[in-house]
């Protein structure tokens, strides 16, 4: 939808329109200054639904009069901003998503909040300013100066008139200094622990240092510190702890192979059944995400579907929320599983049902697919596309996933028929006024759809595989191949026996005199005129 090529030439009017009507645009204008960082931190840490805090401020802000002059200036700046984003190859979503930004972000805690906010700010036209402002606030609540800079760079272009667009040098200097002091302190402390040779203290020392480095954005150093914890880990839970810290950093570094390697270690130890139950949600969720990014959609779907206890999953919302698990699992299952598997693994899956309840439209889409209502299923998914395009993990994969689902729908639709009119296919799948033919052709070419198009009677005809003919051709081919190979082998043996190989001494390789002589003599070009018809 928000294809790269289209977005580049997006008419200004369209962007203005998209940016304009959003009430939320003004909505969050004031919420950041009003809420003190401490309140927010508290909210995030204790898992109190942050959303309950926000709406009141949002509602209040909506009432503030809108400055029209500012508005038009703003759309121009937004255009500049998104042109820049488009040039960087970012996905741009012009449609307004169904999600509510505040409600959405309240599902998460930890460093992923900033990532998600920044991504929405960089991708969604309607939510851009809100999300960027929230991202700046989020960054300033943390200790990572680089993140503040990233967010500020964006908002500086997108909305230079906002208060957040002013660079807060004092804060940056202060935080920088504090970070350095803290790093130094922790390193000294760790040194002290090492001198005392108390294993547990050393482990804690490493962990504290790692956590600090992670929070200031030094991810490589952080993972080094976490790795050092392993040497002093003495119990199973310590090892789990190390792995989780490491995975947390790896996910932020987008290092998916390492995530997979570490995640498998979690369940590798000799865990009791209860332990497995406790660890499974984390393990499955993380490996699902890693598989998703490695484009192994089927493996990813299986992982998400086996996530297990929702309450435990909820506690890992610094990585993904249960809503995400439902969305990822449902979409990927749709893209990679057939109908019976969907029924068995998704709809009849007691554990996963809890997740699906959070995202009822996913459940609906799956059951529509299973019941053969493909067009409705596709329409449902289509309406949620902007939302999914704003998800930090799904964004890059949505076009591929949707294409897979769509072609599966077409294939499934066609299975019971030997022949379908193209018009009825168009009716079921094509957008109004467009024809499905090009897509069908690509599918047939790639072998996903076993059919032929009859453009005279406007039919899609199934190919009936003639097994007998196939067997015969194969048999004859094998016989011929065998004959050819036998001859070729004997020929080569004879050549070698006669010592006639082309040898690799430099003179011959360059085409020595003997090699060339014949050619010049007997050369006769096979030109068009000369080739006898």
């Amino acid at each position: 939808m928000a294809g790269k090529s289209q977005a580049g030439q997006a008419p200004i009017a369209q962007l203005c329109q998209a940016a304009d009507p959003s009430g939320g645009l003004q909505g969050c204008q004031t919420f950041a200054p009003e809420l003190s960082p401490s309140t927010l931190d508290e909210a995030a840490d204790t898992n109190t639904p942050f959303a309950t805090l926000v709406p009141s401020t949002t509602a209040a802000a909506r009432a503030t009069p809108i400055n029209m002059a500012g508005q038009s200036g703003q759309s121009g700046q937004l255009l500049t901003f998104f042109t820049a984003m488009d040039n960087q190859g970012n996905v741009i979503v012009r449609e307004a998503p169904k999600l509510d930004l505040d409600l959405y972000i309240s599902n998460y805690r930890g460093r992923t909040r900033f990532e998600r906010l920044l991504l929405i700010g960089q991708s969604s036209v309607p939510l851009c300013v809100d999300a960027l402002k929230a991202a700046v606030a989020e960054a300033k609540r943390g200790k990572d100066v680089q993140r503040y800079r990233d967010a500020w760079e964006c908002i500086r272009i997108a909305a230079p008139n906002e208060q957040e667009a002013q660079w807060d040098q004092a804060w940056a200097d202060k935080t920088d200094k504090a970070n350095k002091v803290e790093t130094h302190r922790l390193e000294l402390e760790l040194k002290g622990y090492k001198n005392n040779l108390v294993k547990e203290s050393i482990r804690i020392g490493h962990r504290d240092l790692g956590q600090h480095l992670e929070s200031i954005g030094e991810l490589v150093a952080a993972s080094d510190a976490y790795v050092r914890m392993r040497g002093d880990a003495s119990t199973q839970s310590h090892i789990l702890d190390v792995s989780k810290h490491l995975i947390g950093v790896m996910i932020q570094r987008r290092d998916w192979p390492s995530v997979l390697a570490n995640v498998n270690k979690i369940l590798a130890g000799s865990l009791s059944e209860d332990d497995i139950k406790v660890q499974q949600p984390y393990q499955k969720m993380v490996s699902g995400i890693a598989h998703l990014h490695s484009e192994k959609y089927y493996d990813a779907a299986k992982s998400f579907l086996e996530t297990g206890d929702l309450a435990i999953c909820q506690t890992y919302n610094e990585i993904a929320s249960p809503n995400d698990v439902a969305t990822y699992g449902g979409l990927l299952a749709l893209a990679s599983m057939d109908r019976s598997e969907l029924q068995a693994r998704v709809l009849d899956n007691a554990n996963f049902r809890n997740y699906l309840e959070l995202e009822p439209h996913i459940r609906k889409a799956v059951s529509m697919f299973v019941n053969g209502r493909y067009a409705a299923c596709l329409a449902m998914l289509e309406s949620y596309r902007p939302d999914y395009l704003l998800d930090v993990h799904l964004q890059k994969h949505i076009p591929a996933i949707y294409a897979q689902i769509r072609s599966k729908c077409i294939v499934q639709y066609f299975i019971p028929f030997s022949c379908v009119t193209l018009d009825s296919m168009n009716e079921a799948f094509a957008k109004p006024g467009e024809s499905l033919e090009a897509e069908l052709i690509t599918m047939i070419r790639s072998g996903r759809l076993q059919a032929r198009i009859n453009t005279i009677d406007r039919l899609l005809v199934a190919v009936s595989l003639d097994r007998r003919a196939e067997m015969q051709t194969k048999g004859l081919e094998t016989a011929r191949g065998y004959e050819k190979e036998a001859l070729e082998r004997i020929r080569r043996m004879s050549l070698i026996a006669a010592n006639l190989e082309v040898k690799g001494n430099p003179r011959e390789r360059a085409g020595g005199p003997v090699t060339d002589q014949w050619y010049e003599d007997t050369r006769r070009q096979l030109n068009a005129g000369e080739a006898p018809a």
Partner: protein
Amino acid sequence: MDQVASICLAFPPEHLRDDDDSAYHKAMESQLTQLSKLLKDPSQPLRTDGLALLSLLDPSVNSLSYLAVIHSLCIPGLAGPREQLLERLVVFLLSFDARQLRYAGAHLLDILNVVGQGQLLPPAVAVNVLAAAILRIDPSGSMLTSTHINLVKLAYTTDNIEPALPVIDKSIVFYPGMANHKTPDLLCDLTLSPPSFISKDSGLTSLLKAPAILEYDLLCGMMYCARRDWAKAVAAFERVISYPTRDMGTSKIMADAYKKWVLVSLLHAGKYTALPSYTGAGAVKAYGAIGKLYKDVATIFETENAADLKAEVDEHTKEWLDDGNTGLIGEVLSAYQQWQIVNLRRVYSKISIPEIRQLTKCAQIGDVLTKDEDVETLIQNMIISGTLSGVIEKNDNGVSFLTFLSSSATLSEVDFAREIANTATRLKALQPVFKATTERLGTTKEYIKHLVKEQRRAGDKDGDITMGFGADIEDEDLMGEGPTAEALF
């Protein structure tokens, strides 16, 4: 003269039985001694009385004597009326008895070489005669000789391809100079494999070098190209490009063949086929560098970019000319749209001609054709030539359309069985070749050395086992006849 004639007519003796090889051999030997005496005679009786002698002799019965006479008449230089002599020569080469001539290979080769030069006979006749002679000497045609090389050169340069086909269609599996082929005791033995009686020693061929063999297959390929027999051309070029190499060696001929092979495989299969797995490593590397241009053309050929293909071809006119591939490139351009149409079969079952015109592009003009009639003519030609199985029909509203027919009509059980049986027969026909190769390999020094080593090793192992106490008992157990272990204790 009478005495000479009686010597010439002495073979075959009346009572000679064809199936008695040793008697035949003996008679042959004595005849050879007599004839060589005549040949050495300083008065040259065979040259002076040649024509008269020839009229007395039957070329198919007294082949050996006939050869001796005609050899002395033709070499060096023709002695006698040209027309008459050449007629005799042609008749002889078309009807000689190959069994006799095995004993005088060198002389026959002299004659064949002279013919192969193309001076003596008009080229069309020469090619015919050479091809016939080659197949008379070795009906299986499985051995490459120096005469083969002369034949293809002559046939290709003088554009007399048709008569050479029976020879070049045969699969060659033997080459002169193969190690471990000894001259057999009885040269007349009809069960001998070709390499036993065709060798440098028997004189029926001279030794060949690798470039000559490469040249042979390359010329075969080019001859098939001239006949537009793309399948056979691909096979011939493939033999050149996958020629056995050692120490990363590659020959210029192989590189040239590669270029042609790429183009011809486009014509034959509509796409670039992978190199055979047994292609030499050095060759693969060289092809990658030298044949890049051709590979590029092949890559574009498989896409739907007719304009790009045309541009690429036009840009490198000089290269095609230098490589002598201008003609083939032209063929590739004209084949492009045909393959596009053939490939439509994978997507459509019925499609109208105007749609085909829109969907496929002509690489010669780099765009779609402007008239539906042109497309229809093209398709009709394809259907006639068998490249496309389909029919053109007309709709009620006057639109012509193409219906693709199923490509491989199912064979009936009988036909299928026959096809398979044919292949089996051809494989069985390989049996003698296989046997000859096995024999040859089985008696090479390397193999015997290897065998001895293996046996010694196996022997050592046996020795080890018999050393053990337990093995001893088991050994006796196995024998079954001697006293059993229980009985011993």
